[in-house]
């Protein structure tokens, strides 16, 4: 096992798929069909590769495993990859969501399907790359390169205002990343290496930590997204095609959360402690403010997008309370949000494909013609509002328990978000699903087809399984998250602090 560069293989399997896709020739039908199959197969192989890694993963080891290292640019850039429990959980999320996305794409995207699939697979490589990188330069490459396929997905296959949204997305995130690049360059000059494993053991000059932290923060905050740099997200979601929204919500946003845990906390512990209150304020505002904004949205996707911002507020709180429940909770919340929000976007996609509108007011009484769809949508809505028994609950409750140990104010206001999430979720559900049939179009809707079932069922299962048996994920992240947390608590050096 140890001789096979399995991580590298996994990262580049989607790229191999892309190569195949490029060479498919023939008439449109043939190209579409074959490329769908190739893409599907590629993503499934990648998924199995990640499962194989999980099987060989040592749960008790908190350090990096499967490490591979090659010189790229001597003395400057190493190609170094490796994973711990935290990165593996995000990799699994990526490889799990991508086949679902591809399946959702196949019938709903009609023009330039092959190109769409290529961008999706490119995305997958970039995203897995981000979670595997153990070299800041490689990380930055993957992190930024992931922007391009997303930009194309929104800009080419998006809705009416796609160009505005695509540029807004691109410039917003690029703007943040520039600061991160500067910070990375400074780290290289200061420490002489970009190797993450080495950097984690070096203490970076405390005076500069704050500036470097801010550099990284600028990038991650935009991507999370945190208030007030969140306004690109609703626009991007509204314009993106369904599978674009899914990738965006499920995985792209998580790169920031992952970045916070791995780099902000890992490299700049003092600065993280220093800035924690600042993060809390932004997060609490995000939770309450965006929940209220979500309440008054007229567009389904926009509503879910705003709810994402609120959910990510819990994540950032969890990370910066530094205790084990907080960090595990925020990772759990990210994975759970990855599953539930993708499912919600897919649910919107299901009726959008039929009705060609996302306006809530055009709906009503959908349950009469689509009872099965209504049931699944209900489960995801409940997951989104954090009902116990769904994965959404575990993440929220762990974060809140962690936050409560740290600071009452933060936890108190964050808990208000739990009430608000019930309001906007259930109100959305009621307006779309319940009531009398609103118009003839709704009367003639057909219930879920087989493909849609195949797409949504794994997500339902994961939502419930993680809700009833969260150990599945908690065991995986426990030792790595514990290490991060212990490290932070050592730095805090406050004896009264309860572990």
């Amino acid at each position, binding site marked *: 096992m140890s001789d096979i560069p399995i991580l590298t293989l996994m990262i580049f399997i989607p790229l191999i798929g892309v190569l195949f896709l490029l060479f498919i020739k023939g008439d449109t039908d043939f190209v579409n069909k074959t490329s769908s199959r190739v893409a599907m197969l590629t993503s499934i192989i990648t998924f199995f590769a990640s499962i194989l890694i999980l099987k060989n993963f040592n749960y008790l080891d908190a350090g990096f495993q499967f490490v591979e290292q090659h010189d790229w640019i001597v003395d400057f850039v190493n190609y170094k990859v490796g994973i711990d429990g935290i990165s593996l959980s995000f990799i699994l999320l990526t490889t799990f969501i991508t086949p679902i996305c591809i399946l959702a794409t196949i019938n709903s995207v009609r023009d330039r399907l092959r190109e769409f699939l290529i961008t999706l697979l490119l995305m997958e490589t970039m995203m897995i790359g981000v979670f595997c990188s153990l070299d800041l330069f490689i990380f930055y490459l993957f992190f930024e390169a992931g922007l391009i396929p997303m930009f194309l997905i929104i800009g080419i296959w998006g809705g009416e205002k796609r160009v505005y949204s695509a540029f807004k997305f691109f*410039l917003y995130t690029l703007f943040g990343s520039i600061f991160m690049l500067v910070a990375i360059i400074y780290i290289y000059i200061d420490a002489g290496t970009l190797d993450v494993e080495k950097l984690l053991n070096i203490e970076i000059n405390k005076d500069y930590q704050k500036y470097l932290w801010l550099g990284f923060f600028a990038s991650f905050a935009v991507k999370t997204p945190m208030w*007030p740099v969140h306004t690109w997200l609703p626009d991007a979601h509204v314009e993106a095609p369904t599978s674009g929204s899914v990738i965006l919500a499920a995985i792209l946003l998580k790169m920031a959360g992952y970045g916070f845990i791995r780099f902000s906390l890992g490299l700049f512990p003092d600065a993280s402690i220093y800035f924690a209150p600042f993060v809390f304020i932004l997060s609490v505002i995000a939770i309450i*403010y965006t929940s209220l904004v979500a309440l008054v*949205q007229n567009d389904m996707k926009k509503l879910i997008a705003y709810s994402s911002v609120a959910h990510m507020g819990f994540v950032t709180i969890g990370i910066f309370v530094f205790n084990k429940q907080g960090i595990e909770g925020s990772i759990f919340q990210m994975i759970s949000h990855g599953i539930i929000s993708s499912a919600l976007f897919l649910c919107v996609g299901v009726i959008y494909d039929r009705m060609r509108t996302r306006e809530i007011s055009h709906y009503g009484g959908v*349950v009469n013609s689509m009872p099965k769809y209504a049931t699944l949508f209900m489960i995801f809505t409940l997951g989104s509002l954090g009902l*116990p*028994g769904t994965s959404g609950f575990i993440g929220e409750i762990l974060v*809140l328990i962690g936050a409560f140990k740290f600071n009452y104010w933060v*936890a108190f206001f964050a808990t208000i978000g739990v009430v608000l999430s019930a309001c906007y979720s259930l109100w959305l559900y009621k307006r779309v699903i319940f009531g009398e049939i609103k118009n003839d179009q709704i009367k003639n809707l057909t219930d879920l087809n087989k493909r849609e079932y195949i797409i949504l069922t794994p997500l339902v299962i994961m939502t419930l399984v993680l809700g009833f048996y969260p150990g599945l994920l908690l065991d995986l992240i426990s030792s790595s998250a514990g290490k991060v947390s212990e490290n932070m608590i050592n730095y805090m050096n406050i004896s009264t602090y309860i572990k």
Partner: protein
Amino acid sequence: MAYLIIMFPLLGFLITSFIGKKIGDAASQFVTCLLVFASSLISFFYFFQFIKGSEVLNFVIFEWISSGNLNLNWSIYIDSLTSVMLVVVTSVSFLVHVYSIGYMQHDPHKPRFMGYLSLFTFAMLMLITSDNFLQLFFGWEGVGLASYLLIGFWFKKPSANAAAIKAFIVNRVGDFGLAIGVFLIFKFTGSLNFSEVFQQIPSLDQKKINFLGVEGGLITYICIFLFIGAMGKSAQLFLHTWLPDAMEGPTPVSALIHAATMVTAGVFLVVRCSPLFEYSDISKSLIILIGASTAFFAATVALVQNDIKKIIAYSTCSQLGYMFFAAGVGAYHIAIFHLFTHAFFKALLFLCAGSVIHSLNEEQDIRKMGGIYKKIPFTYIFMIIGTLAITGFPFFSGFYSKDAILEATYFSPNNMGGYATVLGVFTALLTSIYSWRLIYKTFHGTYRGEINKYKKIHESPVIILLPLFFLTLGAIFSGFIFKDIFIGNEHQDFWQSSIFFKDQFILKHPPLWFLLFTPVCGLLIIIGSYFIYIKNTHILENLKKINQPLYNFLLNKWYFDEIYNFIFIRPTKAIGSFFWNKGDIKLIDGFGPNGFAKIIKSISERAVLFQSGYLYHYAFVILIGLTILLTYLLL
């Protein structure tokens, strides 16, 4: 075997939801009834074990959450308190399942309905058999979900949907309090397991914390937040507004969830946490205050309502108030005793009301009823028995439990005890008045509905009457049979460690006049209200005219909904719109991305002017540049 109590209803839910359509309505109904019946048999088995004096049972099913020092299991915990709740929940649930077969016979979604009932039963059982706060919270929100689904069962009705959401959200407000209480407990005890938490409470007695800038006792804080949760679930004053609206759901639901079981979860929580509440006099006073006020408030509103189900709903609200102030004065076992008897007679009243509604072809307005007792004699008799029980008529079940509560408050050392006694007695009188008003207006006098409907009035089928019969037995005998076990002098033998009394609870005997006061008044009211509501209705009309503002005040339920709409709902939406339009669009986008875009555009527009293409423009600029450069170099 204990697993089965919980697993049977879950199985029923799963069967109906996955293959309910395939196996058909009858099979779905049969399977769910049978499964709940089985779990009620097992519940009775455990109950009798505990009467004999069994040990506490605690099984771990499997690990739930393990993160740092937070370790929780899915578990089953049965002690005397749980066993009482098990009997109440499973037996009422079974009877309601059976009743639903008859009541929902014209509904096209029978498997779904039965499934939801079983889901509710499952969640409720998870709540009461939990050995930790988080599984309790799971059940707590689970019953909320089932309640939401069942209130909104007729999803085409906008009012039902609105009521369903209202119920869920008001409950969430309560859950918010419960959650904060739970977080506080975990922060200071490092555990959420009941026994581990309760062990540490005495040592935290004097601990003070500064919570959100207010200094206070830790245990008091915990208790108050837990109680807020209880208020939401049990529809106590300020968080009660969802319960009357919840009557939009089918009547069996109202009987099971909104009368007998779910709404009593708050009382259960307080009693379960008696080791906590016993250490906080402030929170106990608060419970008495809220409980007694609710009892009074709801009874006044019930006096003037015209919807048969709403009257009973307010009556439930009022009776829950009794249970709370009983717990507040430290008579936890009496609170549970009242919960126990109340479950039977209130479920009975609701199901009778359902039978009336069913017979009258979905008529719920008592102004359109009257004089129908001959047409539906069985329902009439059952309802009379239910009414005798709730009004505390001697030797019926309510008599024992309600009197015990009033006696306990009478002797309570708590400074709120007097308040509760006065309101409790007064409310008991109001209870009699509204209950008999309901009987008289519904069954006696002359029929006031549409004439052609009158002929169609018919007694309900046996499948509806049979559950009523069994509940009637409960309403008559449950007080008399169990009073010695539950609240007699030897009550400690039964409750063992499940209820904690800091000081031993001894029931003293109050003066005779106090004992006789309520039953005698109750008797007088039966006669008096007959005169007012049937014989001389003009007295009432005059009373209404003279006190029009008061009447409207009561009719509109003290204007709670209007006030909440004004101070919570409308501002929330307004703030949301404000944040969106002014915050996101104007401020952030306006100054952020769009603002930048504008600035860059205008700069580049100006920059474009430089590239005019005219040679003399460029020559001029070069000349000026040269001049400045030379000047700089020379000086």
